[in-house]
Protein backbone atom coordinates (compact mmCIF):
# COMPACT_ATOMS: atom_id res chain seq x y z
CA UNK A 1 0.00 0.00 0.00
CA UNK A 2 2.73 2.44 1.01
CA UNK A 3 4.76 1.43 -2.01
CA UNK A 4 1.81 2.27 -4.28
CA UNK A 5 1.40 5.66 -2.60
CA UNK A 6 5.09 6.42 -3.05
CA UNK A 7 4.85 5.32 -6.67
CA UNK A 8 1.96 7.74 -7.20
CA UNK A 9 3.83 10.63 -5.60
CA UNK A 10 6.83 9.84 -7.83
CA UNK A 11 4.59 10.71 -10.79
CA UNK A 12 4.10 14.19 -9.31
CA UNK A 13 7.84 14.63 -8.69
CA UNK A 14 9.00 13.67 -12.21
CA UNK A 15 8.37 17.11 -13.68
CA UNK A 16 10.52 18.83 -11.04
CA UNK A 17 13.27 16.23 -11.45
CA UNK A 18 13.38 16.83 -15.22
CA UNK A 19 13.87 20.62 -15.01
CA UNK A 20 17.20 21.69 -16.50
CA UNK A 21 19.06 25.00 -16.06
CA UNK A 22 18.38 25.80 -19.74
CA UNK A 23 14.65 25.33 -19.16
CA UNK A 24 14.72 27.72 -16.19
CA UNK A 25 16.59 30.36 -18.22
CA UNK A 26 14.15 30.06 -21.12
CA UNK A 27 11.13 30.32 -18.80
CA UNK A 28 12.67 33.55 -17.52
CA UNK A 29 13.25 34.68 -21.15
CA UNK A 30 9.59 34.00 -21.89
CA UNK A 31 8.56 36.01 -18.85
CA UNK A 32 10.78 38.89 -19.97
CA UNK A 33 9.15 38.90 -23.42
CA UNK A 34 5.72 39.02 -21.76
CA UNK A 35 6.91 41.86 -19.52
CA UNK A 36 8.19 43.81 -22.55
CA UNK A 37 4.85 43.33 -24.26
CA UNK A 38 2.56 44.06 -21.30
CA UNK A 39 4.43 46.70 -19.30
CA UNK A 40 6.52 48.41 -21.98
CA UNK A 41 4.09 48.04 -24.87
CA UNK A 42 6.68 46.46 -27.23
CA UNK A 43 4.63 44.69 -29.93
CA UNK A 44 2.36 43.07 -27.33
CA UNK A 45 0.28 41.26 -29.98
CA UNK A 46 3.32 39.15 -30.81
CA UNK A 47 5.58 39.20 -27.77
CA UNK A 48 2.87 38.03 -25.37
CA UNK A 49 2.00 34.79 -27.23
CA UNK A 50 5.66 34.25 -28.16
CA UNK A 51 6.67 34.61 -24.50
CA UNK A 52 3.91 32.27 -23.36
CA UNK A 53 4.76 29.70 -26.02
CA UNK A 54 8.38 29.86 -24.88
CA UNK A 55 7.33 29.16 -21.28
CA UNK A 56 5.06 26.27 -22.30
CA UNK A 57 7.65 24.48 -24.42
CA UNK A 58 10.33 24.70 -21.73
CA UNK A 59 8.20 23.10 -19.02
CA UNK A 60 9.56 19.52 -19.00
CA UNK A 61 7.68 16.40 -20.07
CA UNK A 62 4.70 18.27 -21.61
CA UNK A 63 5.23 16.82 -25.08
CA UNK A 64 3.67 19.94 -26.61
CA UNK A 65 6.22 19.92 -29.43
CA UNK A 66 6.32 16.12 -29.56
CA UNK A 67 4.90 14.08 -32.39
CA UNK A 68 1.26 14.51 -31.36
CA UNK A 69 1.67 17.64 -29.30
CA UNK A 70 -0.76 20.56 -29.58
CA UNK A 71 1.90 23.10 -30.55
CA UNK A 72 3.44 20.63 -33.01
CA UNK A 73 0.09 20.48 -34.83
CA UNK A 74 -0.01 24.30 -34.99
CA UNK A 75 3.60 24.36 -36.23
CA UNK A 76 3.10 21.66 -38.90
CA UNK A 77 -0.14 23.26 -40.11
CA UNK A 78 0.83 26.91 -40.15
CA UNK A 79 4.59 27.43 -39.97
CA UNK A 80 6.08 24.44 -41.83
CA UNK A 81 3.58 25.03 -44.64
CA UNK A 82 4.09 28.84 -44.47
CA UNK A 83 0.34 29.38 -44.35
CA UNK A 84 0.38 31.65 -41.26
CA UNK A 85 2.67 34.40 -42.65
CA UNK A 86 0.74 34.41 -45.94
CA UNK A 87 -2.62 34.79 -44.16
CA UNK A 88 -1.25 37.66 -42.06
CA UNK A 89 -0.18 39.35 -45.26
CA UNK A 90 -3.77 39.31 -46.53
CA UNK A 91 -4.69 41.30 -43.44
CA UNK A 92 -1.76 43.66 -43.85
CA UNK A 93 -2.76 44.37 -47.44
CA UNK A 94 -6.33 45.05 -46.31
CA UNK A 95 -5.04 47.60 -43.78
CA UNK A 96 -2.49 49.38 -46.02
CA UNK A 97 -3.24 52.58 -47.93
CA UNK A 98 -0.91 52.99 -50.91
CA UNK A 99 -2.39 56.38 -51.90
CA UNK A 100 0.54 58.49 -50.58
CA UNK A 101 2.94 56.27 -52.55
CA UNK A 102 0.93 56.55 -55.75
CA UNK A 103 0.78 60.34 -55.29
CA UNK A 104 4.61 60.47 -55.26
CA UNK A 105 6.05 57.50 -57.20
CA UNK A 106 9.71 58.61 -56.95
CA UNK A 107 9.56 57.71 -53.25
CA UNK A 108 9.35 54.07 -54.34
CA UNK A 109 13.13 54.03 -54.59
CA UNK A 110 13.43 54.75 -50.87
CA UNK A 111 11.66 51.44 -50.26
CA UNK A 112 14.44 49.74 -52.20
CA UNK A 113 17.25 51.62 -50.42
CA UNK A 114 15.75 50.61 -47.08
CA UNK A 115 16.54 46.95 -47.81
CA UNK A 116 20.28 47.49 -48.16
CA UNK A 117 20.89 46.29 -44.62
CA UNK A 118 19.53 42.84 -45.52
CA UNK A 119 22.26 42.16 -48.04
CA UNK A 120 25.13 43.73 -46.11
CA UNK A 121 24.16 41.73 -43.04
CA UNK A 122 23.95 38.56 -45.15
CA UNK A 123 27.54 39.18 -46.29
CA UNK A 124 28.70 39.81 -42.75
CA UNK A 125 26.93 36.68 -41.47
CA UNK A 126 28.75 34.61 -44.07
CA UNK A 127 32.08 36.08 -42.99
CA UNK A 128 31.23 35.22 -39.37
CA UNK A 129 30.76 31.55 -40.20
CA UNK A 130 27.05 31.14 -40.92
CA UNK A 131 26.09 28.76 -43.70
CA UNK A 132 24.56 30.39 -46.83
CA UNK A 133 20.91 29.63 -46.00
CA UNK A 134 21.45 30.61 -42.36
CA UNK A 135 22.97 33.90 -43.50
CA UNK A 136 19.90 34.54 -45.67
CA UNK A 137 17.65 33.95 -42.65
CA UNK A 138 19.75 36.31 -40.50
CA UNK A 139 19.88 38.98 -43.21
CA UNK A 140 16.10 38.92 -43.66
CA UNK A 141 15.70 40.34 -40.14
CA UNK A 142 16.63 43.59 -41.87
CA UNK A 143 13.38 43.37 -43.82
CA UNK A 144 11.82 44.55 -40.54
CA UNK A 145 8.84 42.40 -41.46
CA UNK A 146 7.79 39.52 -39.23
CA UNK A 147 5.83 37.43 -41.75
CA UNK A 148 8.57 37.74 -44.40
CA UNK A 149 11.24 36.73 -41.87
CA UNK A 150 9.16 33.75 -40.77
CA UNK A 151 8.38 32.77 -44.37
CA UNK A 152 12.06 32.62 -45.30
CA UNK A 153 13.46 31.21 -42.06
CA UNK A 154 10.87 28.49 -41.46
CA UNK A 155 11.70 26.87 -44.78
CA UNK A 156 15.42 27.43 -45.15
CA UNK A 157 16.81 27.69 -41.61
CA UNK A 158 14.05 26.39 -39.28
CA UNK A 159 16.53 25.88 -36.42
CA UNK A 160 16.96 29.68 -36.30
CA UNK A 161 13.22 30.46 -36.41
CA UNK A 162 12.90 31.39 -32.73
CA UNK A 163 15.92 33.68 -32.73
CA UNK A 164 15.06 35.38 -36.04
CA UNK A 165 11.41 35.95 -35.09
CA UNK A 166 12.20 37.34 -31.65
CA UNK A 167 14.84 39.62 -33.19
CA UNK A 168 12.54 40.80 -35.99
CA UNK A 169 9.57 41.64 -33.75
CA UNK A 170 11.63 43.07 -30.89
CA UNK A 171 13.64 45.37 -33.11
CA UNK A 172 10.50 46.50 -34.95
CA UNK A 173 9.16 47.63 -31.60
CA UNK A 174 12.44 49.41 -30.88
CA UNK A 175 12.41 51.43 -34.14
CA UNK A 176 11.55 54.68 -32.24
CA UNK A 177 14.76 54.18 -30.25
CA UNK A 178 17.02 52.81 -33.00
CA UNK A 179 16.30 55.21 -35.86
CA UNK A 180 16.48 58.79 -34.48
CA UNK A 181 20.21 58.78 -33.51
CA UNK A 182 21.12 57.44 -36.97
CA UNK A 183 18.89 60.03 -38.65
CA UNK A 184 20.52 62.85 -36.67
CA UNK A 185 24.03 61.52 -37.33
CA UNK A 186 23.60 61.47 -41.11
CA UNK A 187 21.74 64.74 -41.68
CA UNK A 188 22.34 68.41 -40.91
CA UNK A 189 19.75 70.45 -39.00
CA UNK A 190 19.09 72.41 -42.22
CA UNK A 191 18.28 69.17 -44.07
CA UNK A 192 16.01 67.98 -41.26
CA UNK A 193 14.03 71.22 -41.46
CA UNK A 194 13.23 70.92 -45.20
CA UNK A 195 9.46 71.22 -45.58
CA UNK A 196 7.71 68.98 -48.07
CA UNK A 197 4.85 70.51 -50.00
CA UNK A 198 1.47 68.84 -49.98
CA UNK A 199 0.17 68.27 -53.48
CA UNK A 200 -3.30 68.11 -54.91
CA UNK A 201 -4.69 64.56 -55.06
CA UNK A 202 -3.93 63.00 -58.42
CA UNK A 203 -4.76 59.34 -57.86
CA UNK A 204 -8.04 57.96 -59.13
CA UNK A 205 -10.03 55.12 -57.63
CA UNK A 206 -9.35 53.10 -60.81
CA UNK A 207 -5.61 53.55 -60.37
CA UNK A 208 -5.84 52.32 -56.77
CA UNK A 209 -7.63 49.17 -57.97
CA UNK A 210 -5.24 48.49 -60.86
CA UNK A 211 -2.15 49.04 -58.66
CA UNK A 212 -2.30 45.74 -56.70
CA UNK A 213 -3.04 43.79 -59.88
CA UNK A 214 -0.11 45.34 -61.74
CA UNK A 215 2.29 44.93 -58.81
CA UNK A 216 1.35 41.25 -58.48
CA UNK A 217 1.88 40.45 -62.15
CA UNK A 218 5.13 42.38 -62.55
CA UNK A 219 6.83 41.37 -59.30
CA UNK A 220 5.81 37.73 -59.51
CA UNK A 221 7.15 37.45 -63.04
CA UNK A 222 10.45 39.00 -61.90
CA UNK A 223 10.72 36.88 -58.72
CA UNK A 224 8.30 33.93 -58.79
CA UNK A 225 9.42 32.62 -55.39
CA UNK A 226 7.85 35.66 -53.72
CA UNK A 227 4.38 35.01 -55.18
CA UNK A 228 2.83 33.61 -51.97
CA UNK A 229 3.73 36.75 -50.01
CA UNK A 230 3.29 39.41 -52.70
CA UNK A 231 0.11 37.76 -53.97
CA UNK A 232 -1.47 37.71 -50.53
CA UNK A 233 -0.64 41.29 -49.60
CA UNK A 234 -1.95 42.55 -52.94
CA UNK A 235 -5.10 40.41 -52.63
CA UNK A 236 -5.82 42.11 -49.31
CA UNK A 237 -5.20 45.52 -50.85
CA UNK A 238 -7.35 44.79 -53.90
CA UNK A 239 -10.23 43.78 -51.64
CA UNK A 240 -9.83 47.03 -49.69
CA UNK A 241 -9.61 49.31 -52.72
CA UNK A 242 -12.40 47.62 -54.70
CA UNK A 243 -14.84 48.56 -51.94
CA UNK A 244 -17.23 45.78 -52.97
CA UNK A 245 -16.18 43.06 -50.51
CA UNK A 246 -16.26 44.98 -47.26
CA UNK A 247 -17.09 41.86 -45.23
CA UNK A 248 -14.04 40.05 -46.58
CA UNK A 249 -11.86 43.12 -46.08
CA UNK A 250 -13.04 43.61 -42.50
CA UNK A 251 -12.60 39.92 -41.71
CA UNK A 252 -9.09 39.91 -43.20
CA UNK A 253 -8.01 43.04 -41.35
CA UNK A 254 -9.53 41.95 -38.03
CA UNK A 255 -10.65 38.39 -37.31
CA UNK A 256 -8.27 36.58 -39.65
CA UNK A 257 -5.23 38.64 -38.67
CA UNK A 258 -6.00 38.39 -34.95
CA UNK A 259 -6.51 34.61 -34.96
CA UNK A 260 -3.43 33.91 -37.06
CA UNK A 261 -1.32 36.35 -35.01
CA UNK A 262 -2.24 34.46 -31.84
CA UNK A 263 -1.40 31.03 -33.30
CA UNK A 264 1.73 32.33 -35.03
CA UNK A 265 3.10 33.90 -31.88
CA UNK A 266 2.38 30.83 -29.77
CA UNK A 267 4.05 28.56 -32.31
CA UNK A 268 7.11 30.77 -32.71
CA UNK A 269 7.50 30.70 -28.94
CA UNK A 270 7.25 26.92 -29.07
CA UNK A 271 10.41 26.77 -31.19
CA UNK A 272 12.39 28.45 -28.40
CA UNK A 273 13.51 25.26 -26.75
CA UNK A 274 16.42 25.86 -24.34
CA UNK A 275 18.82 23.50 -26.04
CA UNK A 276 18.25 25.09 -29.46
CA UNK A 277 18.02 28.71 -28.30
CA UNK A 278 20.79 29.05 -25.73
CA UNK A 279 23.76 28.90 -28.05
CA UNK A 280 26.44 31.46 -28.97
CA UNK A 281 24.81 31.62 -32.39
CA UNK A 282 21.69 33.17 -30.82
CA UNK A 283 23.66 36.16 -29.57
CA UNK A 284 25.22 36.57 -33.02
CA UNK A 285 21.78 36.42 -34.67
CA UNK A 286 20.42 39.08 -32.31
CA UNK A 287 23.46 41.32 -32.84
CA UNK A 288 23.40 40.96 -36.63
CA UNK A 289 19.65 41.61 -36.70
CA UNK A 290 20.18 44.87 -34.83
CA UNK A 291 22.94 45.80 -37.26
CA UNK A 292 20.69 45.02 -40.24
CA UNK A 293 18.07 47.52 -39.11
CA UNK A 294 20.71 50.19 -38.40
CA UNK A 295 22.16 49.70 -41.90
CA UNK A 296 18.67 49.86 -43.44
CA UNK A 297 18.07 53.20 -41.74
CA UNK A 298 21.46 54.58 -42.74
CA UNK A 299 21.07 53.49 -46.37
CA UNK A 300 17.54 54.92 -46.53
CA UNK A 301 18.63 58.29 -45.15
CA UNK A 302 21.65 58.45 -47.50
CA UNK A 303 19.39 57.70 -50.46
CA UNK A 304 17.03 60.36 -49.16
CA UNK A 305 19.92 62.84 -49.29
CA UNK A 306 20.57 61.85 -52.93
CA UNK A 307 16.89 62.39 -53.76
CA UNK A 308 16.99 65.72 -51.94
CA UNK A 309 19.98 66.83 -54.00
CA UNK A 310 18.42 65.62 -57.27
CA UNK A 311 15.15 67.40 -56.48
CA UNK A 312 16.97 70.62 -55.52
CA UNK A 313 15.87 70.49 -51.91
CA UNK A 314 12.24 69.44 -52.36
CA UNK A 315 12.69 66.13 -50.54
CA UNK A 316 13.51 65.92 -46.83
CA UNK A 317 16.15 63.16 -46.47
CA UNK A 318 14.64 62.05 -43.13
CA UNK A 319 11.85 60.26 -45.02
CA UNK A 320 14.47 57.79 -46.27
CA UNK A 321 14.48 56.27 -42.78
CA UNK A 322 10.85 55.24 -43.34
CA UNK A 323 11.85 53.05 -46.29
CA UNK A 324 11.76 50.00 -44.01
CA UNK A 325 8.76 47.78 -43.50
CA UNK A 326 7.95 48.82 -39.92
CA UNK A 327 4.58 50.29 -40.91
CA UNK A 328 3.36 52.76 -39.68
CA UNK A 329 5.75 53.20 -36.78
CA UNK A 330 8.71 54.34 -38.84
CA UNK A 331 6.64 57.03 -40.60
CA UNK A 332 5.55 58.40 -37.23
CA UNK A 333 9.18 58.48 -36.07
CA UNK A 334 10.13 60.52 -39.16
CA UNK A 335 7.24 62.95 -38.59
CA UNK A 336 8.22 63.34 -34.95
CA UNK A 337 11.89 64.01 -35.78
CA UNK A 338 11.08 66.42 -38.60
CA UNK A 339 8.68 68.47 -36.49
CA UNK A 340 11.45 69.06 -33.90
CA UNK A 341 13.36 71.11 -36.48
CA UNK A 342 10.47 72.69 -38.35
CA UNK A 343 7.07 72.81 -36.67
CA UNK A 344 5.43 73.63 -40.01
CA UNK A 345 6.97 70.56 -41.65
CA UNK A 346 4.40 67.84 -42.29
CA UNK A 347 6.40 64.75 -43.23
CA UNK A 348 3.82 62.11 -42.30
CA UNK A 349 2.33 61.54 -45.76
CA UNK A 350 5.66 61.34 -47.66
CA UNK A 351 7.00 59.14 -44.85
CA UNK A 352 3.92 56.89 -45.14
CA UNK A 353 4.65 56.65 -48.87
CA UNK A 354 8.21 55.55 -48.10
CA UNK A 355 6.94 53.13 -45.45
CA UNK A 356 4.47 51.42 -47.79
CA UNK A 357 7.13 51.23 -50.50
CA UNK A 358 9.33 49.58 -47.87
CA UNK A 359 6.66 46.93 -47.39
CA UNK A 360 6.75 46.10 -51.07
CA UNK A 361 10.53 46.47 -51.12
CA UNK A 362 11.06 44.00 -48.26
CA UNK A 363 8.91 41.34 -49.92
CA UNK A 364 10.64 42.02 -53.24
CA UNK A 365 14.09 41.70 -51.64
CA UNK A 366 13.14 38.36 -50.05
CA UNK A 367 11.58 37.14 -53.30
CA UNK A 368 14.64 38.05 -55.36
CA UNK A 369 16.95 36.38 -52.83
CA UNK A 370 14.91 33.17 -52.98
CA UNK A 371 14.75 33.25 -56.77
CA UNK A 372 18.55 33.68 -56.97
CA UNK A 373 18.99 30.81 -54.49
CA UNK A 374 16.74 28.64 -56.66
CA UNK A 375 18.81 29.39 -59.76
CA UNK A 376 21.94 28.49 -57.78
CA UNK A 377 20.26 25.14 -56.89
CA UNK A 378 20.65 25.89 -53.21
CA UNK A 379 16.88 25.55 -52.70
CA UNK A 380 14.12 23.77 -54.57
Amino acid sequence: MIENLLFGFKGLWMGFAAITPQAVIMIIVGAVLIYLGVKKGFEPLLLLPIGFGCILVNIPLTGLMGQDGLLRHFYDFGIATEIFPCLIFVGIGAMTDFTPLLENPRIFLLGAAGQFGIFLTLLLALLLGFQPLEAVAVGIIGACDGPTSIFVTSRYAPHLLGQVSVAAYSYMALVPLIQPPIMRLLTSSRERAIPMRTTKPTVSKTALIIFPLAVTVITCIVAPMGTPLMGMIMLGNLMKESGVVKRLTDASANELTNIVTLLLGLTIGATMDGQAFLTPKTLLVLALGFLAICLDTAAGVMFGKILSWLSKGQVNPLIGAAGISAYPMSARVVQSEGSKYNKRSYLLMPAMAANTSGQIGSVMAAAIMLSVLQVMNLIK
Partner: protein
Amino acid sequence: MGKLEFGITMLVSGMGGTLVSLYLLSLMIRLIKVAFPRQVENKPAEAAGTENKK
Protein backbone atom coordinates in the same frame (compact mmCIF):
# COMPACT_ATOMS: atom_id res chain seq x y z
CA MET B 1 31.14 28.87 -55.01
CA GLY B 2 32.88 30.28 -51.94
CA LYS B 3 31.03 32.10 -49.16
CA LEU B 4 32.42 35.53 -50.09
CA GLU B 5 31.55 35.01 -53.74
CA PHE B 6 28.06 33.88 -52.74
CA GLY B 7 27.61 36.93 -50.53
CA ILE B 8 28.72 39.41 -53.18
CA THR B 9 26.47 37.70 -55.76
CA MET B 10 23.50 38.02 -53.41
CA LEU B 11 24.38 41.64 -52.60
CA VAL B 12 24.69 42.72 -56.22
CA SER B 13 21.82 40.67 -57.68
CA GLY B 14 19.56 41.12 -54.66
CA MET B 15 20.03 44.85 -54.12
CA GLY B 16 20.27 45.54 -57.84
CA GLY B 17 17.17 43.47 -58.56
CA THR B 18 15.23 45.21 -55.80
CA LEU B 19 16.22 48.68 -57.02
CA VAL B 20 15.42 47.90 -60.65
CA SER B 21 12.09 46.24 -59.75
CA LEU B 22 10.91 49.13 -57.63
CA TYR B 23 12.05 51.63 -60.26
CA LEU B 24 9.97 49.74 -62.83
CA LEU B 25 7.03 49.82 -60.42
CA SER B 26 7.40 53.60 -60.05
CA LEU B 27 7.30 53.94 -63.86
CA MET B 28 4.24 51.70 -63.92
CA ILE B 29 2.50 53.95 -61.39
CA ARG B 30 3.13 57.01 -63.54
CA LEU B 31 1.69 55.12 -66.52
CA ILE B 32 -1.41 54.09 -64.56
CA LYS B 33 -1.97 57.67 -63.39
CA VAL B 34 -1.72 58.94 -66.97
CA ALA B 35 -4.04 56.20 -68.29
CA PHE B 36 -6.57 56.62 -65.48
CA PRO B 37 -6.42 60.23 -64.28
CA ARG B 38 -8.39 61.42 -61.32
CA GLN B 39 -11.69 63.00 -62.36
CA VAL B 40 -12.22 66.46 -60.87
CA GLU B 41 -15.50 66.54 -58.95
CA ASN B 42 -17.91 69.13 -60.43
CA LYS B 43 -20.81 68.74 -57.97
CA PRO B 44 -19.98 71.70 -55.68
CA ALA B 45 -19.58 74.01 -58.73
CA GLU B 46 -22.85 72.77 -60.22
CA ALA B 47 -24.68 73.29 -56.90
CA ALA B 48 -23.35 76.85 -56.69
CA GLY B 49 -24.49 77.46 -60.28
CA THR B 50 -28.00 76.21 -59.45
CA GLU B 51 -28.22 78.41 -56.37
CA ASN B 52 -27.22 81.49 -58.37
CA LYS B 53 -29.91 80.81 -60.96
CA LYS B 54 -32.53 80.72 -58.16
